[in-house]
């Protein structure tokens, strides 16, 4: 017989693993990938493949040749980053090669430079996305038009996002109702289904909700961050809208356009970069929601979700310091 093993208790484990969590997230991202392909065609598929492949490749290369540690590509986290990065860019032909640069920054700077999964203070996909937005502003704000379902061409026709239309319109002196009445503006139903201009994975609220509900059921995420994020964005935009409906859009359109849904359900809920305690998660979500609306209305960019989440990522350690779980007895 072998020697007996000894160890401290407990002697059993729940079978939960990082790998399982990451693959569940990947599964939850599939509906968005499918709607992205449905609305934007082959470009969407190619961008996603290039992004995921590059994220995995760069992680493998860095671990093998720079950090000289065993590869962790199999844990699926690089695929999560790759998919989320792809979901945050416009589905145009230019992006097929540009996303590779984004992947290098996301994995190389956003994640591996801090020591890999679990050590990064900022959401890697957002680091990559913001890098691309600042470095390639034209390509990152050239949106494919959405007209027909399953477009198979590779042509880039410049369309616009609802938020872009509103920003331009308000800057140009139009009132919100005039912008909303313009023929370029999609109907609320189209907005909900995602039939509008926007980044590859962010357009369909329904696909995002399906993924988010799956993650909630599998207990990968909790309701705190998404609800606080979307709720605070809804309330602040609602107050602004009530105060001046000619300058501010209504709260329902606010939360369904742009990246709020994707950001709240999949980017802000990133375990590594969000607070640990429930109370901290609520603060984090509210901060994301308020910053998003502030940037959208008073910032230079039409969309502010990426910046809002990254800003809140930066205060996560402080939130963790102040928000403690309720002690059983003190």
């Amino acid at each position, binding site marked *: 017989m072998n020697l007996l093993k000894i*160890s401290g208790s407990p002697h059993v484990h*729940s079978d939960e693993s990082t790998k399982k969590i990451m693959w569940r997230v990947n599964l939850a991202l599939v509906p968005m990938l499918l709607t992205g392909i449905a609305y934007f065609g082959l470009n969407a598929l190619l961008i996603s493949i290039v992004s995921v492949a590059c994220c995995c490749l760069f992680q493998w290369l860095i671990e093998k040749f720079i950090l000289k540690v065993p590869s962790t590509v199999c844990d699926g986290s690089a695929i999560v980053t790759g998919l989320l990065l792809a979901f945050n860019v416009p589905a145009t032909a230019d992006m097929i090669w540009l996303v590779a640069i984004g992947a290098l920054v996301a994995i190389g700077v956003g994640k591996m430079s801090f020591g890999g999964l679990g050590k990064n203070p900022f959401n890697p996909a957002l680091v990559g996305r913001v890098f691309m937005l600042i470095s390639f502003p034209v390509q990152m704000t050239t949106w494919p038009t959405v007209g027909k379902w399953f477009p198979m061409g590779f042509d880039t026709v410049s369309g616009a996002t609802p938020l872009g239309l509103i920003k331009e319109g308000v800057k140009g002196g139009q009132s919100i109702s005039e912008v909303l009445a313009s023929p370029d503006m999609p109907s609320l139903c189209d907005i909900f289904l995602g039939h509008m201009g926007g980044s590859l994975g962010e357009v369909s609220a329904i696909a995002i909700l399906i993924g988010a509900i799956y993650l909630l059921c599998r207990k990968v995420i909790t309701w705190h961050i998404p609800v606080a994020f979307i709720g605070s964005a809804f309330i602040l935009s609602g107050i602004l809208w009530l105060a001046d409906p000619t300058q501010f859009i209504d709260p329902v359109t606010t939360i369904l356009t742009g990246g709020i849904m994707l950001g709240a359900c999949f980017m802000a809920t990133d375990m590594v970069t969000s607070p640990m305690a429930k109370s901290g998660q609520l603060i984090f979500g509210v901060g994301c929601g308020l910053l998003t609306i502030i940037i959208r209305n008073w910032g230079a960019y039409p969309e502010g979700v990426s910046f809002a989440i990254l800003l809140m990522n930066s205060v996560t350690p402080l939130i963790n310091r102040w928000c403690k779980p309720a002690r059983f007895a003190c």
Partner: protein
Amino acid sequence: MGGVHPEENKISTNAVIEQMPLPKQVAVLMNQHLGAPATPIVAKGDKVKVGQLIAEAQAFMCANIHSPVSGTVNKIDTCKDMVGLPKTAIYIDVEGDEWMESIDRTPDIKRECTLEPKEIVAKLKEMGIVGLGGATFPAHIKYSVPEGKKAEYLIINAAECEPYLTSDHRVMMEHAEEICIGVSILRKALGVPNAYIGIESNKPEPIRVMTEMARTFEGIIVEPLVVKYPQGAEKQLINSITGRKVPSGKLPIDVGCVVSNIGTTFAVYEAVQKNKPLIENILTVTGKKLPSQHNYQCRIGITYNDIIKHALGQLPETTGKVISGGTMMGKAISNLDAPTTKGASSVLVMDENEARRRPESNCIRCGKCINACPMGLEPYLFSALVKNDRIEEAQAHNILDCIECGCCFFSCPANKPLTDEIRLGKNKVRAMMAAKK
């Protein structure tokens, strides 16, 4: 708050309690309880009977120890306990099975107890009764409520929330009446109106049996509990039954509660009504890969090897780990030649594959350890603080409140040995506090 749901694996539930045959020799450890070791009062060559006092409690926090067998004292020597630490033990060569005349060995059940509370406590002390829920706290100290404190609730812990263990389950099924008498005696000792027996609701049979039996007694209430590990942890149990919370660093009596394990109440019955000292305990012998599952009544001081030999012949080839206790809080045994003690509750045999720990990876800050912690602590933070030797901060974050239930490590997706690191941290905090004094 918190808690986890480990696989229950109560596979020995239906194994009726069997009598373990007497071994050739027993080793009776002098440290079988929380506190100072007892002092031997026999010498080499002395003849002893079953139930004879062989070691006396001389310190305050200590308990009497009686001979579990009859025979001759072979030697008083150091003996390695189950984790390999040297302890003093009285070795007794077994000869026959001659009991002290004072012990009532008839099968009759005696319901009436005429002793006064003080006499009951004295009896518990005389008979060497300790808590059998794991901590082996001397019972006579627990039932002497200090000046200025008042007991309002007597809580009997029959949650048995640990996976695999079935000894409490079997005792309730087979000795319900004796248990209820034991509970009544403890209720009388404390002078409280009601005693509550908490049983996890995944044990419908013991709940039924105990509820029916409790009806024939005064002031015994059976409380089914939510199934969630660690429901049977003292502070969690008190909270479930009374709604009260024991503050950090305080004892149950500070919120008017006294908690005893169900196995202890059976020992109390035998001690007070039958004059029988604590010389036997009930052990579960179990494991997923074992050919048979057992519950045994064993004399204390029998070695783990003797138990395994009788129950299984030998350990299976693929054995990875042998645990005394359950899978969540039990101790891995490194020395199977060690004798059992009063607090032993099981011999749990784990397969190689079950015993293997998976490799650790980076913390992904998922917060599962925080959600699992029944004390509302931050295990991930302790892990980092202890590794960096930031002991004062660990103390400031209430590391000493940790009950070492293992929920954090159990639920960690990165397989970080959080419970081990916290245990180390607690020791470092205690060492630091001792150095400051």
